[in-house]
């Protein structure tokens, strides 16, 4: 284990050091109590049973004691009760601590992911992030709750038993340990082989599940192309492979426990033979035979568990490092604290010789020397092919990325100098396929702000979404499914417009939907667009001509450069790229 890893473990365990000390203390006491119980039984066998008495006199410390079996029995029960009570509290504390650690780590990584910049999210797939927050943190909890504690308890138990055995009869102990070591080696070899087979079966399972899921998703395709029989055959092949891979794991798994069992009894029989033949002058009392047999049986569990747990440690190390590799990227965090708070925004937005590329090492610039200015309440539209830089400009206005050269100014202030939250508060986005959170429509409109029903309703009216909302059974309290699956793209856009009206930002950004929207919804959306563009500074990525003909300026982008700008009319008169495309399109239609 690297130093860094230990430091990371220490960092998450530090707030709970007290708990760990208590746990360790408890488990040592429990181990000693558990190991002492067979000694009591041994004494009962040697002192009472063999002599066939119930009461016996002992003299120790110069005094005589009279002890009965019943007394030892009560002692034994007391020990059992104390031991298990302690055990309960220790396990409880362990699970409380483990869950706390998981909760804390989860929060740490989740808030990191929320505060990290868009660049970080671009290179980190959301699935990966999801796994870090959910399953990797769980591995940590398992580590602290199961692995670490049992590992410690098992090892200390093995040590306690070993000490007792050595003190009782060191020669026998050595023999027992010889057998144990052979056992450990065999288990280790077998487990390694079994793991290889196990991984193969896991892969086969993934393959099978992927295939089955695809067959379900692609059911219509399968029917349409009449390939049921082929798919059926394919499934049988994959399922067969999966089943046989699992059967293969059984080859290693099946004998493993039995080998341990065999060695356990081998050790027991060696002890019996030795005591029967009095080999090597070893004298063993009956009670000792009992205690050794008991300990041998108790030893095997902790030993095999320890072997398993060592693997658990390795898994936890991997998960921990995965989590921290993300959290440690401190320079991916956005700065929300510094910068100027802005109020009373007029809405003049200006790009001055902006150069931008997504990664500093990239050779190609995504935006090259872009300059334009939008006066308050003016509207501009961006047109150009995929990759021309339309979306990039929108991203930059939101300051999702920082530019390399040039300046972006809002009301004459460089947006780099504006507090990030404050900047974004004044910018409202309606994206192509707006993200709808699972929750009510009201929650989706107010977002993190608590709003009155009236205010939400007002926003809905302004967004012309009234008839749509009224058509829902529960009105503004209608639940949206995950990602708003129960709404069409057009309806989602209406909700997104209501958001904008409710929050009332000063700069309005619209990425118009390309999907087909039914005519009546489209008309409603158009109303909202008109209203917003009249009142606010607006940037559109337009997909419909009716949106674009009225804007104050169209920027035609190509390969990250502005190649033409002007109103629709001006551009058509210019006879450049825009008008060429326009005319050729109408010619191809055959014109009217």
């Amino acid at each position, binding site marked *: 284990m690297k130093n860094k890893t230990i430091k990371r473990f220490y960092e998450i365990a530090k707030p709970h050091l007290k708990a760990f000390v208590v746990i360790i203390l408890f488990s040592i006491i429990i181990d000693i109590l558990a190991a002492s119980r067979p000694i009591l039984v041994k004494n009962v066998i040697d002192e009472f049973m063999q002599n*066939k008495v*119930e009461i016996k006199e002992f003299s120790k410390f110069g005094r005589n004691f009279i002890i009965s079996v019943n007394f030892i029995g009560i002692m034994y029960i007391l020990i*059992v009760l104390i031991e*298990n009570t302690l055990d309960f509290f220790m396990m409880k504390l362990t699970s409380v601590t483990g869950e706390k650690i998981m*909760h804390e780590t989860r929060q740490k990584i989740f808030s990191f992911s929320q505060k990290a910049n868009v660049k970080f999210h671009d290179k980190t797939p*959301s699935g990966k992030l999801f796994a870090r927050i959910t399953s990797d943190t769980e591995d940590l909890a398992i580590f602290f709750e199961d692995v670490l504690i049992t590992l410690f308890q098992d090892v200390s138990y093995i040590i306690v038993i070993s000490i007792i055995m050595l003190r009782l009869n060191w020669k026998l102990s050595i023999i027992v340990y010889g057998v144990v070591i052979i056992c450990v080696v065999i288990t280790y070899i077998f487990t390694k082989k079994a793991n290889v087979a196990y991984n193969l079966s896991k892969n086969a399972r993934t393959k099978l599940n992927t295939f089955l899921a695809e067959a379900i998703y692609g059911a*219509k395709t399968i029917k*349409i192309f009449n390939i049921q029989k082929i798919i059926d055959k394919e499934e049988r092949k994959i399922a067969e492979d999966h089943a046989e891979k699992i059967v293969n794991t*059984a080859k290693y798994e099946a004998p493993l426990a039995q080998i341990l069992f065999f060695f356990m009894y081998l050790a027991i029989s060696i002890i019996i033979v030795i005591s029967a033949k009095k080999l090597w002058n070893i004298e063993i009392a009956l009670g000792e035979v009992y205690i050794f047999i008991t300990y041998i049986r108790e030893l095997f569990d902790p030993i095999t568990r320890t072997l398993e747990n060592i693997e658990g440690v390795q898994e936890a190390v991997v998960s921990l490092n995965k989590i921290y590799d993300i959290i440690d990227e401190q320079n991916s965090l956005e700065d929300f604290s510094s910068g100027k708070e802005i109020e009373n925004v007029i809405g003049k937005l200006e790009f001055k010789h902006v150069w931008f590329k997504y990664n500093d090492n990239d050779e190609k610039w995504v935006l090259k020397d872009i300059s334009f200015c939008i006066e308050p309440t003016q509207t501009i539209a961006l047109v150009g092919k995929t990759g021309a830089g339309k979306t990039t400009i929108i991203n930059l206005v939101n300051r999702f990325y920082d530019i390399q050269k040039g300046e972006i100014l809002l009301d004459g202030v460089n947006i780099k100098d504006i507090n990030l939250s404050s900047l974004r508060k004044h910018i409202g986005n309606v994206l192509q396929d707006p993200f709808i959170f699972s929750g009510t429509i009201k929650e989706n409109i107010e977002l993190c702000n608590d709003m009155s029903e009236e205010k939400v309703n007002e926003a809905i009216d302004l967004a012309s979404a009234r008839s749509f909302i009224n058509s829902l059974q529960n009105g503004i309290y209608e639940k949206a499914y995950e990602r708003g699956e129960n709404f069409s793209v057009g309806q989602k856009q209406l909700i997104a417009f209501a958001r904008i009206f409710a929050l009332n930002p000063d700069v309005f950004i619209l990425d118009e939907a390309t999907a087909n929207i039914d005519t009546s919804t489209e008309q409603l959306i158009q109303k909202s667009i008109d209203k917003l563009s009249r009142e606010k500074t607006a940037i559109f990525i337009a997909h419909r001509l*009716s949106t674009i003909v009225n804007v104050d300026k169209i920027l035609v982008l190509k390969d990250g450069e502005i190649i033409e700008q002007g109103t629709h009319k001006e551009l058509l008169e210019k006879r450049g790229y825009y008008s060429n495309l326009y005319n050729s399109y109408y010619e191809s239609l055959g014109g009217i």
Partner: protein
Amino acid sequence: MKKVLIKLLKKYKIQYLWVIVTLLIFQITRFIPVQKVGSIIDLLSDATNNKGLIIRNFIVFFACVIIHCISRSLYKYIVKATTYRFEKDLRNEIFSKFLNLKLEDMQNTKNGELMSYITKYVNDIRGGIYGIIAYGIRTIFAFGVLFILMLNVNWKLTLIVIIPMVIEGIIVNKLKEQIKNSEKHAQEEYTKMSEFVQESTDSIRTTKAFNEEEYQISLFKTKSEKVKNNYTKLGIYSSLLSASMGACFGICYAISFIFGTKLIIMELITVGEFIAFNSYIRDMYWPLKWIPQLITRIKKMQVAFNKLNSFYEINEEILGESKEQLVGDIVINNLDFSYDNTNVLKNINVTIKSGETLGIIGTIGSGKSTIANLLLKLYEVNDGQIFIDGKDINKIDIEQLRDSFCYITQESFLFSKSIRENIKLFREFSNDDIMKSSSKSALTEDIKNMENGIETIVGEKGITLSGGQKQRVAIARAFLFNKNFIIFDDTFSALDNRTEKLILENLKGFLENKTCIIISNRISDVKQADKIIVLDKGEIVQKGTHNELLSQEGLYRNFYNEQSSNEFLKEMNIGEEF
């Protein structure tokens, strides 16, 4: 369903017999060594005189250990192999059943639920069978053998020790119920939390744009806290269970030596017997823990069985008997169709002759795709008739019908396999044919630019294709399969004009002698068709050629005017790299 299970159980009856036999052998040989150790210990007190007996006992002891190890290994192997092979066969049955379901029934069931049928429930049935063997039969047998062995030592001692165990058995079952409940709660909270995480990692841009970070963090905190609390509760119950087991067995040991000593003094049992008895108590530990497991598994199996049973009762597709080759004429007569009590199609009458192309145009929800679905018998024709080559579609064999059609849908589903596999769809075609059809659908350039060419893997583990690329992969299928009937359903929407024109050009020659239907909401896709029908709310409102329809007042001309403007911008903005 019952029949299927019985059939499969019969298939593996010899294996299951072996499982039972090895189980019995290893259970018997499991406890004899314990007893023998006891006897030997008694004999040890006078080792020299009892030499013969000790050796005899020792041989039995060791033989039992070896037989136990071998039979138990065999048991474990056979039981795992058999139950998993059984599971595989059962899954194959369910999967075949699934493939034969009607499309409506598939669509009425959530994908997740369908997945449960072929994975989870099948798994639960196997788990139940395994549970009955490994926990049921074994527990009964272990208790039986141990009880007899214990009674053999002394019946009074046995009874007195059994009492705390019975009490513990009840406690264990009660606690297990609690554990199961809190486990369910904990899992529910966990699911809620992970759904939330999924959503917020996907919505990060929206979150940032609306300054939602802190809000999301606080929402997450409450969710994660709930998970924490529930799992802690679960942990406490589990600790309680394990501690109570420990306490119970500890008390049993104490009782056994208190009374054991008395019995030894009364010379009713020997020290060796006492030591063996002590081991028997220990061996009771696991069977006691197995009982709740057995109950859970059997309950799960019952649920799974009922679920699968109702799944089996869903009707399969009606096959139809006529297997004659289909050539090309389609006649649709007074066709009505409703779905979920809403009329989707009303009084549709169309005739398409072999070699003709029909264009169908209409807004979203006008019922365009339903016509195609009916032609492929994805839905059943109930009201009105469809004739193909003069034969009623309901009488035509479903496989024969679908084999004559090539239906390219709106959203083309791609398997996470190579592009080649996705074009040929698991059928056999020569490389040459595949290349030709991919070039006709304007895919060649795209394929060239991919790292592994046509062998590039698509989907989750491979590259993501753009909407246009996906559509062209689907179109390549049409060229490759070369069927007599071809339907394109909104297949050209993600293509830019030049690509679309090129493909339509390639189609011209290809479609000679074929019957073709092009469904779209774009004028440019259908204007070349021999005949165009305009659908509105499930009814044909206009019929004719492009020029005829343009000269009329109506929906078609409205579409034309509206689209010609927007399509220009689409052309400007989408413009696939070509």
